[in-house]
């Protein structure tokens, strides 16, 4: 029941070529410690699924810069000029989805369903006619053209939780929730880092965002000893 694990042996479970979901919208909720260990160990030919590409020098940007990533599935990479250049030069394959559709495709995998019907982007270039079905979705009797969005799966998810217990129950905070609970439900193997690891029973059951049923391993990160400036405020965004 105790899922506390050591950092390096946990990340060592990830093989080259793996598909990995990475929590975070920009920096908040990004598992910087897990990503740095992945960078250190050297796994490559990775497919990453993250909302964005972080900013240069942060998080998954470092894996991109080290040529470890073949494909990125994301919503928007505008804050990472290097990633855009890699995309334009053909060094990096990027699959874009509308942000909420990306979230919902991940959730679909987490919910054990195979896909869902949406009208988002249906009249734009992101939709191919082969993705359209006509289906009667209400009692009007009329059929409606809808896009089938399939569930998005991954072998691994790397999660940043504000707090956790040893069973693997996770709690997030502020805008650092974002994709984390969805990815924690979706991936086969879910590794969560946290600065605040507590004994089971510490948190009220209804405050837990991700139940331990979805979590494989919890890694305690000592905030004081973590060298990551990545967890601190990004100076270029701070107004005085």
């Amino acid at each position: 029941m105790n899922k506390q694990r050591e950092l390096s042996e946990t990340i060592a479970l990830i093989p080259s070529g793996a598909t990995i979901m990475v929590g975070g919208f920009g920096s908040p909720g990004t598992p910087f410690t897990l990503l740095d260990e992945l960078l250190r160990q050297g796994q490559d030919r990775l497919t990453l699924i993250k909302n964005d590409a972080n900013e240069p020098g942060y998080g998954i940007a470092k894996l991109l810069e080290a040529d470890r990533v073949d494909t990125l599935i994301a919503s928007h990479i505008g804050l990472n000029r290097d990633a855009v250049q890699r995309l334009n030069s053909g060094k990096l394959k990027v699959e874009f989805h509308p942000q909420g559709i990306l979230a919902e495709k991940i959730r679909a995998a987490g919910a054990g369903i195979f896909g869902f019907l949406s009208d988002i982007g249906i009249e734009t270039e992101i939709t191919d006619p082969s993705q359209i079905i006509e289906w009667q979705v209400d009692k009007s009797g009329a059929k409606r053209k809808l896009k089938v969005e399939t569930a998005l799966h991954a072998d691994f998810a790397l999660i940043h939780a504000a707090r956790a217990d040893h069973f693997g129950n996770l709690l997030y905070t502020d805008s650092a929730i974002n994709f984390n609970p969805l990815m924690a439900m979706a991936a086969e193997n879910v590794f969560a880092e946290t600065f605040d690891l507590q004994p089971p029973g510490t948190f009220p059951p209804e405050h837990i965002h991700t139940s331990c049923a979805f979590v494989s391993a919890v890694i305690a990160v000592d905030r004081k000893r973590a060298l990551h400036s990545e967890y601190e405020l990004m100076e270029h965004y701070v107004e005085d």
Partner: protein
Amino acid sequence: MSKTERPVRTERILRRAAKEIQSGMIVNLGIGLPTLLPDYLPENFAGLIHSENGVLGCGSVAKRGQARPSLIDSAGHYISLKPGSSCFDSAVSFAMIRRGRIDLCLLGAFEVDTCGNLANWKIPGKLSPGIGGAMELAQKAKRLIVLSTHTDKNGRPKILEHCRLPLTAPACVNRIITDEAVIDVTPEGLLVQEIADNISTQDLQNHTEAKLIFPENSLRKF
């Protein structure tokens, strides 16, 4: 960019746009010009700013000392929270959007046209950083207002007969606010509602590719 440094064109757009945000509304502010709007709202504004990264009830930009690394808006700025705010995951955030719970969304544009079509996400061969939340916001906000300079930096019209860039969403725009005019998308076409006090109707039409409709009574200045 602090408020005092903003160009006059930008200032005019933002001052006018702030009037669209009414008490009790849930409002999403797109990246770019709209993100600057909170500076133009009354201090005691009784509405809720939605940020699609998972916040309802965004406060003003947090200054050093108040800013928390875990709390940003979708543009990446550190923000404060207002009392009664809530934080949630990205699926819930976009449920809110697709479900029609956003009363008003203000977005930037590359191009907008007579039918209310919007292009703001991609310039083929030049700019394709991704879609972000734009498609869902454009398609599903109850009311969509585009904020844009009337012409691009080379003086070319951005309000077109037909958009030429890949669309974000068709027939989604309700109103266009530029530094030169406030224009509504109507079944009859683009109806000018207000005009900047430093421009003639003839100049406005000259700066606009689409045919504009002018009201019979005199135009309100802004």
